[in-house]
C-alpha cells in the first residue's frame, strides 16, 4: 500500500511541475488528469490484489493429505504403467490422466480426511466382498464416504466384470459425480473406463487396470512385496545355518495376474545371486490345490531349503501340508490373512509381506474427494508394505484388524 501512495505522490508532483511549466493548463484540467491517474492506479492495484488472492487460493487448494506424500516421481509426471508391466509379459495399455506424480503413502493420515465441497454421489464397485478383506474394504469406503459427506452407491461385483460393467452403466444413467472401482477383469474393465470417459465422469481405481484410461490409480508396489518375502526367507535360511544349495519351491496362480507377475519378479531377484539354488514354480487356485501340490513337492524334493506362497491361498495350503508332513521347511509369504499372522506367531511361517486393506481404501476415497474438489492429485498412489515377522506380528495384527488382537484370535474370542 505504501508503494501505491508513494507512486501517487510522485505522479502528483510531476503533474504539478508540468502544470507550473505550462501556464495554459488550468487547475481544473490538472485536477481531472490527477483524478484519472488516481483511478487508473487504483484499478491496477485492485488487479494486483486479485491476482495475489487467486495465487493464494491456488496454494491453498492443495491435496488435503499431501503432508503424507513421499514422492517417487515428481509432480507433473505421469507414471508409465505400461513400461512397468509390459517387460513382465503382462500386456498393458493404460493412460493415467492425473499429473500429480507418484507417491508412497503410509497406513495413516497426518491431516484430516477431506470434506466434499458439494454433495457428490460416488459409485464404488468392489471386486468381492464375501471375505474378510473385501468386507473391510467396503466398510472402510462406506465410513470414508460418510466422513467426507458424500453419497456412496455400492456394487459387489463378485469377480464378475459383466456385473461391474452393468453397475457402471447404471451409474452413468444416474449421473454420478465420480466412480471408484476395483477391477474384476483387468482388460474387461476397459469398456467401463471408456464409457466413463465418454460421460466425462472421473474414475479412480483401486488396483491398476491393464487397458483404458483412469484419472488415478491406488496400488501397491508388488515387486517390493516379492522382495520382502524373498529377503525374509533368505535371512531365515542363513540364520538357520542352512547352505544356500538346493531347491526353493514357490506357488503361484495358474494364470497371469499383474500382481502375481510383479511379486514373482521381486522374489526371484533375491535368489538370482545363488547359482546352486533351483527355484521350482507350482500352481493352483484354492488352498486345497496348493496343499496337494506342496505335499507332493515335499516328497519329491528332499533337498528343499525353503518355500514361498505368492498369495494367501498358496501359503495357507502350503503351511497345512508342511504341518501334516511334520516338515520344518522354511516358508515365507505375502498377504496378511489372520491364519498367516497366526502361522508367523507360531513359527510355521518365517514372515510375510503385508499390507493394509483399510488404508488404501481410505486413501482412494481421499483421492476422489480431492479430485472432485478440483485439486490436482497424484496419478499413482502406492500403499505401504510391511515385512511382518515374529518380532512385529502382534502389532501388525492390531494395525490390520483394528480393535482385535492376535491373542484374542488365537483364543477364539475374536
Amino acid at each position, binding site marked *: 500500500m505504501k508503494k501505491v501512495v508513494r507512486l501517487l505522490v510522485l505522479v502528483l508532483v510531476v503533474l504539478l511541475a508540468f502544470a507550473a511549466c505550462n501556464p495554459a493548463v488550468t487547475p481544473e484540467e490538472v485536477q481531472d488528469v490527477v483524478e484519472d491517474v488516481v483511478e487508473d492506479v487504483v484499478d491496477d492495484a485492485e488487479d494486483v490484489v486479485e491476482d495475489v488472492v487467486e495465487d493464494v487460493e491456488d496454494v491453498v487448494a492443495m491435496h488435503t493429505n499431501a503432508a503424507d506424500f513421499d514422492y517417487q516421481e515428481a509432480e507433473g509426471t505421469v507414471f508409465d504403467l505400461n513400461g512397468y508391466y509390459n517387460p513382465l*509379459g*503382462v*500386456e498393458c*495399455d493404460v493412460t493415467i490422466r492425473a499429473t500429480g506424480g507418484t507417491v508412497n503413502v503410509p497406513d495413516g493420515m497426518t491431516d484430516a480426511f477431506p470434506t466434499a465441497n458439494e454433495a457428490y454421489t460416488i459409485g464404488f464397485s468392489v471386486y*468381492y*466382498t*464375501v471375505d474378510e478383506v473385501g468386507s473391510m474394504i467396503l466398510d472402510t469406503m462406506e465410513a470414508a464416504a460418510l466422513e467426507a459427506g458424500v453419497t456412496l*452407491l*455400492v*456394487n*459387489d*461385483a*463378485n469377480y*464378475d*466384470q*459383466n*456385473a461391474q*460393467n*452393468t*453397475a457402471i*452403466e*447404471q451409474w452413468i*444413467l*444416474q449421473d454420478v459425480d465420480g466412480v471408484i472401482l476395483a477391477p474384476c*477383469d*483387468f*482388460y*474387461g474393465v*476397459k*469398456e467401463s473406463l*471408456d464409457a466413463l470417459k465418454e460421460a466425462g465422469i472421473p474414475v479412480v481405481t483401486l488396483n491398476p487396470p*491393464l*487397458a483404458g484410461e483412469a484419472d488415478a490409480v491406488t496400488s501397491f508396489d508388488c515387486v517390493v512385496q516379492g522382495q520382502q518375502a524373498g529377503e525374509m526367507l533368505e535371512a531365515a535360511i542363513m540364520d538357520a545355518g542352512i547352505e544356500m544349495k538346493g531347491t526353493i519351491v514357490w506357488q503361484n*496362480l*495358474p*494364470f*497371469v495376474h499383474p500382481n502375481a507377475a510383479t511379486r514373482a519378479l521381486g522374489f526371484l531377484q533375491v535368489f538370482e545371486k545363488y547359482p546352486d539354488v533351483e527355484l521350482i514354480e507350482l500352481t493352483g487356485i484354492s488352498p486345497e490345490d496348493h496343499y496337494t501340490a506342496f505335499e507332493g513337492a515335499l516328497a519329491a524334493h528332499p533337498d528343499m531349503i525353503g518355500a514361498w506362497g505368492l498369495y494367501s491361498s498358496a501359503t495357507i495350503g502350503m503351511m497345512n501340508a508342511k504341518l501334516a508332513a511334520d516338515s520344518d521347511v522354511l516358508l515365507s509369504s505375502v498377504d496378511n490373512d489372520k491364519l498367516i499372522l497366526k502361522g508367523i506367531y507360531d513359527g510355521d511361517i518365517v514372515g510375510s509381506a503385508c499390507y493394509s486393506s483399510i488404508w488404501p481404501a481410505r486413501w482412494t476415497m481421499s483421492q476422489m474427494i480431492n479430485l472432485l474438489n478440483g485439486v490436482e492429485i497424484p496419478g499413482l498412489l502406492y500403499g505401504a508394505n510391511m515385512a511382518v515377522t515374529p518380532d512385529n506380528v502382534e502389532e501388525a495384527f492390531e494395525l490390520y484388524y483394528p480393535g482385535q488382537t492376535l491373542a484374542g484370535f488365537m483364543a477364539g474370542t475374536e
Partner: protein
Amino acid sequence: MQAKSGVKKRGGITVGQFFIRFRTIIILIVIMGIFTALNDVFINPINLLNMLKRQSFVFIVGFGMTFVITLAGLDLSVGGVAAITGVGFSMLVKGGLMPIVPALLIMLVVALALGFFNGFVSVKGKIEPFLVTLATMNIFRGLALILSEGRPTPIVVEGFADFFGNGKIGGVFPTPVVFVIVLFAATWFLYKKTKFGFYVRCIGGNQEAARVAGIKVNFIKITAYTLNAFYAFVAGLILAALFNSGNPDLGKDLPLDAISGVILGGTAISGGNGRIWGTFGGCLIIAALSSGMSLLSLPYSYQIVVKGAVIILAMLLDNYLKARSNE
C-alpha cells in the same frame, strides 16, 4: 369340478391354464414392476438395452440349451467352449497373425468339433450327457488355460469389439442385442418349423417311440450337442468382444445361467416339452433380476439368494398351477 377348484373359464381356457401359458411373462412383469417402483432408472430404455446386452450371451446359449434340455440332456461345457473360442480367436489374430474371417472360421470348426465330441461320447459311450459335459467342462477350461498359458490376450483387431460387443446399430441398439434377436428368430424357426426341431421334441417326449418311428435318434442327439456348441461359439465371441480379450476365465457361470433361463421359461428338465419363447422370457427374468439388484446395490450374497428363490418359486408355482389345471 371347475367350481370346486375355483378355476374359471376365460376365453376358452381356464385361469389356471392362462397363468401356466403366460407364467413367464407374468413373473417378468411383476419383477420389472417391483424394480421400477424401487428405482425408476430401471425402466429407462437405455438401461433395458444395456440389460439385454449384458445378458446377451446367456440368451444365446439358452437358445441352444433348449434343444439339449428338450432331449432330456444337459450341457455344462458351454462355458469352456466359449472360453476356448475367445482364447483361440485372440491368439490367431494377435499381432496380425491371421485376418479376422479365417480366424473365425477356424474357431467355428473347433467349437463344432467340441460339441460333436460331447454328443458322440454321450451317445456312443452310453454315458449320461450331464456326466460327459461335467468332464468336458473341466477339459475345455483346462485347454483354454493351456492354450493361453494363463494369459488373457488383449484383442486389438479393428472392428471386432464393435461388431460383436460394444457397437450400436443406429447409435442405439447394442450389436449383441441384434445377435440375440436374429438368433432367436432362427432358433424359433429351427425348433418349431423344421424336421430337426420336430425330431428333437419327439425324442425328448419318448425316445423309444421316436426310434420305432424311424427317427435317427443318435444322429439327432449328436447334432443337437454340435448345434449347442455353435451357440456357445457366438457367445464366446461376444464375451471376448465385451471384455476386450481372450480370457480363459470367461463364461464360468454361463451354463448354469442359461439352464436357469431355459427352466424358468417352461422347458421341462425331463425333456419333450420345450419353448423358445419361454427361454427368451426366462433369460429376460434372469437379466431383469441381475440389472434390478445391481441398481439397488444389493450385496452379492443377497443376489444369489434372490435368484435361487425366484427359480424355486417359479417352479413351485408352475407345478401348483399344472396340478390345479389337471384337477
